[in-house]
Protein backbone atom coordinates (compact mmCIF):
# COMPACT_ATOMS: atom_id res chain seq x y z
CA UNK A 1 0.00 0.00 0.00
CA UNK A 2 1.35 3.39 -0.92
CA UNK A 3 1.55 5.76 1.97
CA UNK A 4 -0.41 8.78 0.89
CA UNK A 5 -1.68 11.49 3.21
CA UNK A 6 -5.26 10.27 2.75
CA UNK A 7 -4.32 6.74 3.73
CA UNK A 8 -2.65 7.97 6.88
CA UNK A 9 -5.64 10.08 7.84
CA UNK A 10 -8.04 7.17 7.27
CA UNK A 11 -5.80 4.86 9.27
CA UNK A 12 -5.56 7.27 12.19
CA UNK A 13 -9.30 7.90 12.20
CA UNK A 14 -9.97 4.17 12.15
CA UNK A 15 -7.43 3.65 14.92
CA UNK A 16 -9.08 6.33 17.06
CA UNK A 17 -12.51 4.84 16.44
CA UNK A 18 -11.26 1.34 17.24
CA UNK A 19 -9.57 2.57 20.42
CA UNK A 20 -12.60 4.56 21.53
CA UNK A 21 -15.11 1.79 20.92
CA UNK A 22 -12.84 -0.70 22.61
CA UNK A 23 -12.27 1.56 25.57
CA UNK A 24 -15.98 2.17 26.01
CA UNK A 25 -17.03 -1.42 25.73
CA UNK A 26 -14.10 -2.84 27.66
CA UNK A 27 -15.23 -0.69 30.57
CA UNK A 28 -18.61 -2.31 30.22
CA UNK A 29 -17.07 -5.79 29.96
CA UNK A 30 -14.85 -5.06 32.91
CA UNK A 31 -17.75 -3.95 35.07
CA UNK A 32 -19.90 -6.89 34.05
CA UNK A 33 -17.03 -9.31 34.54
CA UNK A 34 -16.14 -7.89 37.92
CA UNK A 35 -19.77 -8.14 38.91
CA UNK A 36 -20.00 -11.76 37.82
CA UNK A 37 -16.88 -12.65 39.79
CA UNK A 38 -18.32 -10.91 42.83
CA UNK A 39 -21.69 -12.53 42.16
CA UNK A 40 -23.70 -9.41 41.51
CA UNK A 41 -25.44 -8.37 38.28
CA UNK A 42 -23.36 -5.31 37.34
CA UNK A 43 -24.68 -2.49 35.14
CA UNK A 44 -27.93 -3.83 33.69
CA UNK A 45 -30.39 -0.97 33.78
CA UNK A 46 -29.54 1.12 30.71
CA UNK A 47 -30.34 -0.81 27.60
CA UNK A 48 -30.20 -4.58 27.17
CA UNK A 49 -27.50 -6.00 29.48
CA UNK A 50 -26.56 -2.44 30.32
CA UNK A 51 -25.06 -1.95 26.86
CA UNK A 52 -26.03 1.72 26.78
CA UNK A 53 -24.01 2.43 29.92
CA UNK A 54 -20.70 3.37 28.19
CA UNK A 55 -22.16 6.03 25.83
CA UNK A 56 -24.16 7.49 28.70
CA UNK A 57 -21.04 7.63 30.86
CA UNK A 58 -19.23 9.30 27.99
CA UNK A 59 -21.94 11.95 27.65
CA UNK A 60 -21.82 12.54 31.37
CA UNK A 61 -18.06 13.03 31.30
CA UNK A 62 -18.24 15.37 28.32
CA UNK A 63 -20.91 17.48 29.99
CA UNK A 64 -18.64 18.20 32.92
CA UNK A 65 -16.32 21.14 33.27
CA UNK A 66 -12.57 20.60 33.13
CA UNK A 67 -11.23 22.35 36.19
CA UNK A 68 -7.57 23.16 36.54
CA UNK A 69 -6.34 23.34 40.12
CA UNK A 70 -4.80 26.62 41.26
CA UNK A 71 -1.03 26.61 41.01
CA UNK A 72 -1.00 23.80 38.48
CA UNK A 73 1.10 24.03 35.36
CA UNK A 74 -1.71 24.75 32.91
CA UNK A 75 -0.06 23.68 29.67
CA UNK A 76 1.42 20.49 31.05
CA UNK A 77 -1.84 19.73 32.81
CA UNK A 78 -3.74 19.83 29.54
CA UNK A 79 -1.07 18.04 27.50
CA UNK A 80 -0.83 15.05 29.84
CA UNK A 81 -4.15 13.30 29.01
CA UNK A 82 -3.56 13.85 25.30
CA UNK A 83 -0.15 12.25 25.70
CA UNK A 84 -1.81 9.28 27.40
CA UNK A 85 -4.00 8.67 24.37
CA UNK A 86 -1.66 9.62 21.54
CA UNK A 87 0.97 6.83 21.73
CA UNK A 88 -1.79 4.25 21.99
CA UNK A 89 -3.41 5.51 18.81
CA UNK A 90 -0.08 5.67 17.01
CA UNK A 91 0.71 2.10 17.98
CA UNK A 92 -2.52 0.88 16.38
CA UNK A 93 -1.27 2.17 13.07
CA UNK A 94 1.59 -0.35 12.93
CA UNK A 95 -0.17 -3.36 14.41
CA UNK A 96 -0.99 -5.97 11.75
CA UNK A 97 -4.38 -7.52 12.35
CA UNK A 98 -3.98 -9.83 9.39
CA UNK A 99 -1.94 -10.10 6.21
CA UNK A 100 -3.78 -7.23 4.62
CA UNK A 101 -5.27 -5.28 7.55
CA UNK A 102 -2.35 -3.14 8.59
CA UNK A 103 -2.16 0.60 8.15
CA UNK A 104 1.61 0.92 7.86
CA UNK A 105 3.80 -2.09 8.20
CA UNK A 106 7.34 -1.29 9.26
CA UNK A 107 10.34 -3.52 9.40
CA UNK A 108 11.06 -2.21 12.90
CA UNK A 109 7.48 -2.61 14.12
CA UNK A 110 8.49 -4.09 17.48
CA UNK A 111 10.79 -1.15 18.21
CA UNK A 112 8.17 1.36 17.19
CA UNK A 113 5.52 -0.14 19.49
CA UNK A 114 7.88 -0.22 22.46
CA UNK A 115 9.02 3.30 21.78
CA UNK A 116 5.43 4.51 21.90
CA UNK A 117 4.65 2.32 24.91
CA UNK A 118 7.39 3.99 26.91
CA UNK A 119 5.79 7.36 26.19
CA UNK A 120 2.83 6.25 28.28
CA UNK A 121 4.71 6.63 31.53
CA UNK A 122 5.77 10.09 30.38
CA UNK A 123 2.13 11.19 30.40
CA UNK A 124 1.71 9.86 33.93
CA UNK A 125 4.81 11.75 34.99
CA UNK A 126 3.61 15.00 33.46
CA UNK A 127 0.11 14.56 34.88
CA UNK A 128 1.41 13.96 38.39
CA UNK A 129 4.01 16.69 38.18
CA UNK A 130 1.73 19.38 36.83
CA UNK A 131 -1.23 18.71 39.13
CA UNK A 132 0.47 20.30 42.13
CA UNK A 133 -0.89 17.63 44.39
CA UNK A 134 1.28 15.50 46.63
CA UNK A 135 -0.67 12.33 45.92
CA UNK A 136 -0.37 12.79 42.19
CA UNK A 137 3.32 13.46 42.62
CA UNK A 138 3.88 10.27 44.63
CA UNK A 139 1.88 8.36 42.08
CA UNK A 140 3.97 9.54 39.16
CA UNK A 141 7.17 8.69 41.02
CA UNK A 142 5.84 5.18 41.47
CA UNK A 143 4.59 4.92 37.92
CA UNK A 144 7.96 5.89 36.51
CA UNK A 145 9.99 3.55 38.69
CA UNK A 146 7.57 0.80 37.76
CA UNK A 147 7.76 1.55 34.05
CA UNK A 148 11.56 1.74 34.09
CA UNK A 149 11.76 -1.59 35.90
CA UNK A 150 9.26 -3.51 33.81
CA UNK A 151 10.36 -2.29 30.44
CA UNK A 152 13.61 -4.22 30.86
CA UNK A 153 12.24 -7.79 31.10
CA UNK A 154 9.58 -6.89 28.57
CA UNK A 155 12.16 -5.80 26.01
CA UNK A 156 14.40 -8.74 26.78
CA UNK A 157 11.59 -11.22 26.11
CA UNK A 158 10.62 -9.30 23.01
CA UNK A 159 14.23 -9.52 21.82
CA UNK A 160 14.14 -13.27 22.44
CA UNK A 161 11.20 -13.53 20.07
CA UNK A 162 12.84 -11.23 17.55
CA UNK A 163 15.92 -13.44 17.65
CA UNK A 164 13.85 -16.54 16.99
CA UNK A 165 12.04 -14.90 14.11
CA UNK A 166 15.15 -13.20 12.86
CA UNK A 167 13.18 -10.06 12.18
CA UNK A 168 11.67 -7.11 14.01
CA UNK A 169 8.87 -6.87 11.48
CA UNK A 170 5.59 -7.82 13.15
CA UNK A 171 4.14 -9.36 9.99
CA UNK A 172 7.27 -11.43 9.51
CA UNK A 173 7.15 -12.61 13.14
CA UNK A 174 3.61 -13.87 12.57
CA UNK A 175 4.58 -15.55 9.29
CA UNK A 176 7.31 -17.46 11.08
CA UNK A 177 4.70 -18.90 13.45
CA UNK A 178 1.96 -19.49 10.95
CA UNK A 179 2.82 -23.04 9.95
CA UNK A 180 1.15 -24.84 12.87
CA UNK A 181 0.29 -24.43 16.53
CA UNK A 182 3.67 -25.97 17.39
CA UNK A 183 5.44 -23.12 15.65
CA UNK A 184 3.83 -20.55 17.93
CA UNK A 185 6.38 -18.85 20.10
CA UNK A 186 4.56 -19.76 23.29
CA UNK A 187 5.55 -23.41 22.79
CA UNK A 188 7.83 -23.71 19.78
CA UNK A 189 8.46 -27.45 19.52
CA UNK A 190 8.87 -27.09 15.79
CA UNK A 191 10.35 -24.01 14.19
CA UNK A 192 13.97 -23.08 14.53
CA UNK A 193 14.51 -22.70 18.28
CA UNK A 194 12.84 -25.69 20.01
CA UNK A 195 12.97 -23.68 23.21
CA UNK A 196 10.94 -25.35 25.95
CA UNK A 197 11.35 -22.33 28.23
CA UNK A 198 9.22 -20.09 26.05
CA UNK A 199 6.02 -20.56 28.11
CA UNK A 200 7.86 -18.79 30.93
CA UNK A 201 8.85 -16.03 28.58
CA UNK A 202 5.21 -15.72 27.67
CA UNK A 203 4.28 -15.40 31.34
CA UNK A 204 7.01 -12.84 31.91
CA UNK A 205 5.89 -10.83 28.93
CA UNK A 206 2.28 -10.97 30.03
CA UNK A 207 3.14 -9.85 33.57
CA UNK A 208 5.19 -6.98 32.20
CA UNK A 209 2.27 -5.97 30.02
CA UNK A 210 0.10 -5.88 33.12
CA UNK A 211 2.65 -3.70 34.87
CA UNK A 212 3.22 -1.46 31.84
CA UNK A 213 -0.47 -0.75 31.47
CA UNK A 214 -0.76 -0.03 35.21
CA UNK A 215 -3.36 -2.68 35.68
CA UNK A 216 -4.15 -4.45 38.93
CA UNK A 217 -2.40 -6.09 40.69
CA UNK A 218 0.31 -3.65 39.57
CA UNK A 219 -1.77 -0.46 39.65
CA UNK A 220 0.44 1.19 42.22
CA UNK A 221 0.10 4.45 40.32
CA UNK A 222 -3.54 4.83 41.19
CA UNK A 223 -3.69 2.98 44.49
CA UNK A 224 -6.97 4.39 45.79
CA UNK A 225 -6.28 3.26 49.33
CA UNK A 226 -3.14 5.40 49.62
CA UNK A 227 -3.12 7.99 46.86
CA UNK A 228 -6.76 9.06 46.34
CA UNK A 229 -6.73 8.32 42.61
CA UNK A 230 -3.03 8.76 41.90
CA UNK A 231 -1.97 10.79 38.90
CA UNK A 232 -5.52 11.57 37.77
CA UNK A 233 -6.71 12.84 41.15
CA UNK A 234 -7.11 16.38 39.83
CA UNK A 235 -8.61 15.44 36.49
CA UNK A 236 -12.31 15.56 35.82
CA UNK A 237 -14.39 15.60 32.69
CA UNK A 238 -12.77 14.36 29.46
CA UNK A 239 -9.28 14.77 30.96
CA UNK A 240 -10.10 11.83 33.14
CA UNK A 241 -11.94 10.22 30.22
CA UNK A 242 -8.79 10.34 28.07
CA UNK A 243 -6.67 8.71 30.79
CA UNK A 244 -9.29 6.05 31.06
CA UNK A 245 -9.45 5.46 27.32
CA UNK A 246 -5.66 5.48 27.18
CA UNK A 247 -5.52 2.74 29.78
CA UNK A 248 -7.89 0.51 27.85
CA UNK A 249 -6.24 1.29 24.53
CA UNK A 250 -2.95 0.24 26.12
CA UNK A 251 -4.51 -3.00 27.26
CA UNK A 252 -5.62 -3.69 23.71
CA UNK A 253 -2.14 -2.95 22.40
CA UNK A 254 -0.50 -5.09 25.07
CA UNK A 255 -2.80 -7.96 24.14
CA UNK A 256 -2.16 -7.40 20.43
CA UNK A 257 1.58 -7.58 21.05
CA UNK A 258 1.26 -10.72 23.15
CA UNK A 259 -0.86 -12.29 20.42
CA UNK A 260 1.61 -11.36 17.70
CA UNK A 261 4.78 -12.25 19.55
CA UNK A 262 3.65 -15.46 21.23
CA UNK A 263 0.29 -16.72 20.00
CA UNK A 264 0.85 -16.72 16.29
CA UNK A 265 -1.07 -13.53 15.44
CA UNK A 266 -3.81 -14.29 12.93
CA UNK A 267 -2.46 -17.79 12.39
CA UNK A 268 -5.08 -20.45 13.02
CA UNK A 269 -4.16 -23.39 15.27
CA UNK A 270 -5.17 -26.32 13.04
CA UNK A 271 -5.57 -24.68 9.68
CA UNK A 272 -9.25 -24.00 10.34
CA UNK A 273 -10.97 -20.94 8.85
CA UNK A 274 -7.87 -18.76 8.50
CA UNK A 275 -8.54 -15.08 8.84
CA UNK A 276 -8.53 -12.02 10.99
CA UNK A 277 -11.05 -13.52 13.46
CA UNK A 278 -8.37 -15.70 14.95
CA UNK A 279 -6.50 -12.55 15.84
CA UNK A 280 -9.64 -10.98 17.30
CA UNK A 281 -10.43 -14.16 19.24
CA UNK A 282 -6.95 -14.40 20.77
CA UNK A 283 -6.92 -10.68 21.44
CA UNK A 284 -10.17 -10.72 23.38
CA UNK A 285 -9.29 -13.89 25.26
CA UNK A 286 -6.17 -12.11 26.50
CA UNK A 287 -8.17 -9.01 27.39
CA UNK A 288 -10.62 -11.19 29.29
CA UNK A 289 -7.64 -12.60 31.18
CA UNK A 290 -6.59 -9.03 32.01
CA UNK A 291 -10.00 -8.39 33.54
CA UNK A 292 -10.04 -11.77 35.24
CA UNK A 293 -6.62 -11.09 36.84
CA UNK A 294 -7.65 -7.65 37.99
CA UNK A 295 -10.59 -8.99 39.93
CA UNK A 296 -8.69 -11.93 41.37
CA UNK A 297 -5.57 -10.47 42.94
CA UNK A 298 -5.16 -7.70 45.48
CA UNK A 299 -2.73 -4.88 44.75
CA UNK A 300 0.94 -5.61 45.50
CA UNK A 301 3.15 -3.29 47.46
CA UNK A 302 5.72 -1.15 45.68
CA UNK A 303 8.53 -3.25 47.19
CA UNK A 304 6.88 -6.48 46.14
CA UNK A 305 6.49 -5.09 42.68
CA UNK A 306 10.11 -4.01 42.29
CA UNK A 307 11.43 -7.18 43.93
CA UNK A 308 9.44 -9.30 41.53
CA UNK A 309 10.90 -7.40 38.62
CA UNK A 310 14.57 -7.04 39.61
CA UNK A 311 15.00 -10.34 41.41
CA UNK A 312 12.87 -12.69 39.35
CA UNK A 313 11.71 -11.40 35.99
CA UNK A 314 14.94 -9.77 34.81
CA UNK A 315 17.28 -12.69 35.71
CA UNK A 316 14.89 -15.25 34.26
CA UNK A 317 14.30 -13.36 31.05
CA UNK A 318 18.05 -12.76 30.66
CA UNK A 319 18.69 -16.44 31.17
CA UNK A 320 16.11 -17.33 28.57
CA UNK A 321 17.66 -14.88 26.15
CA UNK A 322 21.04 -16.59 26.50
CA UNK A 323 19.45 -20.03 26.36
CA UNK A 324 17.59 -19.15 23.16
CA UNK A 325 20.74 -17.74 21.62
CA UNK A 326 22.49 -21.04 22.41
CA UNK A 327 19.67 -23.10 20.95
CA UNK A 328 19.61 -21.03 17.80
CA UNK A 329 23.32 -21.67 17.38
CA UNK A 330 22.86 -25.43 17.89
CA UNK A 331 19.86 -26.02 15.60
Amino acid sequence: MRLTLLNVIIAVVLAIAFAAVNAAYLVWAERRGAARIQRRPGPNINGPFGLLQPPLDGIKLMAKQLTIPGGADRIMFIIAPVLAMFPAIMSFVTIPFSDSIVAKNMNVGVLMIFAFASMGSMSLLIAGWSSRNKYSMMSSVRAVSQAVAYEIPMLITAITVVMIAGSADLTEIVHQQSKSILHWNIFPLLGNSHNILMPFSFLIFFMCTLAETNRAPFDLGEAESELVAGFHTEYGSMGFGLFFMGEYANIVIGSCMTTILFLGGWGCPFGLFPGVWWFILKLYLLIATFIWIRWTFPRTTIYGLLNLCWKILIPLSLFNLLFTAGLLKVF
Partner: protein
Amino acid sequence: MVAYFTEIFTGLMSLFIGMGITFKEFFKPTVTVSYPYETLTMSARYRGHIELVEDEEGNPQCVVCGLCEKACPSDCISLAGEKPEGGKKKVLTKYKLDFTKCSLCGSCVESCSFGAINFSKDYNLASTNKEDFYFDLLKRLEERKK
Protein backbone atom coordinates in the same frame (compact mmCIF):
# COMPACT_ATOMS: atom_id res chain seq x y z
CA MET B 1 19.02 -21.32 44.86
CA VAL B 2 16.52 -24.12 45.47
CA ALA B 3 14.58 -21.88 47.83
CA TYR B 4 14.51 -19.19 45.15
CA PHE B 5 12.92 -21.48 42.59
CA THR B 6 10.53 -23.10 45.07
CA GLU B 7 9.33 -19.65 46.03
CA ILE B 8 8.72 -18.73 42.40
CA PHE B 9 6.96 -22.02 41.80
CA THR B 10 4.69 -21.90 44.87
CA GLY B 11 3.95 -18.24 44.18
CA LEU B 12 2.97 -18.98 40.60
CA MET B 13 0.83 -21.92 41.62
CA SER B 14 -0.99 -19.85 44.23
CA LEU B 15 -1.80 -17.32 41.49
CA PHE B 16 -3.34 -20.03 39.33
CA ILE B 17 -5.33 -21.39 42.27
CA GLY B 18 -6.68 -17.91 42.94
CA MET B 19 -7.66 -17.53 39.32
CA GLY B 20 -9.36 -20.91 39.44
CA ILE B 21 -11.50 -19.76 42.33
CA THR B 22 -12.65 -16.57 40.60
CA PHE B 23 -13.27 -18.55 37.41
CA LYS B 24 -15.68 -20.80 39.27
CA GLU B 25 -17.37 -17.87 40.97
CA PHE B 26 -17.88 -16.25 37.56
CA PHE B 27 -20.38 -18.92 36.54
CA LYS B 28 -22.31 -19.06 39.78
CA PRO B 29 -25.64 -17.25 40.00
CA THR B 30 -25.76 -13.77 41.49
CA VAL B 31 -26.66 -13.47 45.14
CA THR B 32 -27.50 -9.79 45.38
CA VAL B 33 -30.97 -8.30 45.06
CA SER B 34 -31.53 -5.31 42.73
CA TYR B 35 -32.99 -3.19 45.46
CA PRO B 36 -35.67 -0.89 44.13
CA TYR B 37 -36.89 -3.58 41.73
CA GLU B 38 -36.70 -6.49 44.12
CA THR B 39 -36.77 -6.47 47.89
CA LEU B 40 -35.86 -8.98 50.53
CA THR B 41 -38.43 -10.16 53.05
CA MET B 42 -37.29 -8.81 56.40
CA SER B 43 -36.35 -11.29 59.07
CA ALA B 44 -38.86 -11.99 61.84
CA ARG B 45 -36.94 -10.09 64.49
CA TYR B 46 -36.18 -7.03 62.40
CA ARG B 47 -36.82 -3.83 64.38
CA GLY B 48 -38.38 -0.98 62.46
CA HIS B 49 -40.24 1.82 64.16
CA ILE B 50 -43.13 0.62 66.31
CA GLU B 51 -46.63 0.33 64.92
CA LEU B 52 -50.07 -0.33 66.36
CA VAL B 53 -51.54 -3.80 66.14
CA GLU B 54 -55.17 -4.05 65.08
CA ASP B 55 -57.82 -6.47 66.33
CA GLU B 56 -60.27 -8.41 64.14
CA GLU B 57 -62.49 -5.40 63.53
CA GLY B 58 -59.53 -3.35 62.45
CA ASN B 59 -59.44 -1.11 65.51
CA PRO B 60 -56.27 -0.68 67.52
CA GLN B 61 -55.90 -3.25 70.28
CA CYS B 62 -54.56 -0.60 72.61
CA VAL B 63 -56.49 -0.02 75.86
CA VAL B 64 -54.76 3.28 76.59
CA CYS B 65 -53.12 2.13 79.78
CA GLY B 66 -50.13 4.36 79.15
CA LEU B 67 -47.52 1.82 80.22
CA CYS B 68 -45.57 2.14 77.00
CA GLU B 69 -45.41 5.89 77.40
CA LYS B 70 -43.91 5.43 80.83
CA ALA B 71 -41.57 2.65 79.76
CA CYS B 72 -39.93 4.62 77.00
CA PRO B 73 -36.54 5.85 78.17
CA SER B 74 -36.43 8.60 75.56
CA ASP B 75 -39.94 9.94 75.92
CA CYS B 76 -40.80 9.23 72.33
CA ILE B 77 -44.37 8.21 72.87
CA SER B 78 -47.27 10.46 73.66
CA LEU B 79 -50.76 9.07 73.59
CA ALA B 80 -54.27 10.00 74.61
CA GLY B 81 -57.65 8.30 74.74
CA GLU B 82 -61.17 8.91 75.80
CA LYS B 83 -64.14 6.89 76.92
CA PRO B 84 -66.93 7.21 74.36
CA GLU B 85 -70.41 7.75 75.78
CA GLY B 86 -71.99 4.49 76.73
CA GLY B 87 -68.76 2.61 76.01
CA LYS B 88 -66.90 0.63 78.64
CA LYS B 89 -63.35 0.77 77.30
CA LYS B 90 -61.18 3.75 76.54
CA VAL B 91 -60.57 4.36 72.85
CA LEU B 92 -57.24 5.57 71.53
CA THR B 93 -57.48 9.03 69.98
CA LYS B 94 -53.84 9.94 69.60
CA TYR B 95 -50.65 7.93 69.42
CA LYS B 96 -47.59 9.97 68.45
CA LEU B 97 -44.10 8.56 68.09
CA ASP B 98 -41.06 10.81 67.88
CA PHE B 99 -38.84 8.57 65.79
CA THR B 100 -35.94 11.05 65.85
CA LYS B 101 -35.25 10.03 69.43
CA CYS B 102 -36.29 6.38 69.41
CA SER B 103 -33.41 3.98 69.95
CA LEU B 104 -35.48 0.92 69.01
CA CYS B 105 -34.78 -0.48 72.47
CA GLY B 106 -38.08 -2.32 72.59
CA SER B 107 -39.08 -1.36 76.13
CA CYS B 108 -42.45 -0.17 74.90
CA VAL B 109 -43.21 -3.42 73.07
CA GLU B 110 -42.12 -5.40 76.11
CA SER B 111 -44.16 -3.33 78.55
CA CYS B 112 -47.42 -3.71 76.67
CA SER B 113 -49.27 -6.67 78.10
CA PHE B 114 -51.99 -6.45 75.44
CA GLY B 115 -49.77 -7.03 72.44
CA ALA B 116 -50.97 -3.74 71.04
CA ILE B 117 -47.68 -2.51 69.61
CA ASN B 118 -45.10 -4.21 67.53
CA PHE B 119 -42.00 -3.46 65.46
CA SER B 120 -42.85 -2.73 61.86
CA LYS B 121 -40.76 -3.96 58.94
CA ASP B 122 -40.68 -0.52 57.35
CA TYR B 123 -37.16 0.62 56.39
CA ASN B 124 -37.82 3.03 53.52
CA LEU B 125 -37.79 6.06 55.76
CA ALA B 126 -35.32 8.46 54.17
CA SER B 127 -36.24 12.11 54.29
CA THR B 128 -34.51 15.49 54.44
CA ASN B 129 -37.17 16.80 56.79
CA LYS B 130 -37.01 16.23 60.49
CA GLU B 131 -40.79 16.66 60.79
CA ASP B 132 -41.30 13.56 58.65
CA PHE B 133 -40.15 11.45 61.56
CA TYR B 134 -42.83 12.53 64.00
CA PHE B 135 -45.15 9.67 63.27
CA ASP B 136 -48.85 9.59 63.90
CA LEU B 137 -49.27 5.88 64.39
CA LEU B 138 -53.06 6.01 64.20
CA LYS B 139 -52.81 7.55 60.77
CA ARG B 140 -50.22 5.02 59.71
CA LEU B 141 -52.56 2.25 60.86
CA GLU B 142 -55.35 3.70 58.71
CA GLU B 143 -53.02 3.91 55.74
CA ARG B 144 -51.89 0.36 56.22
CA LYS B 145 -55.45 -0.90 56.23
CA LYS B 146 -56.14 0.66 52.83
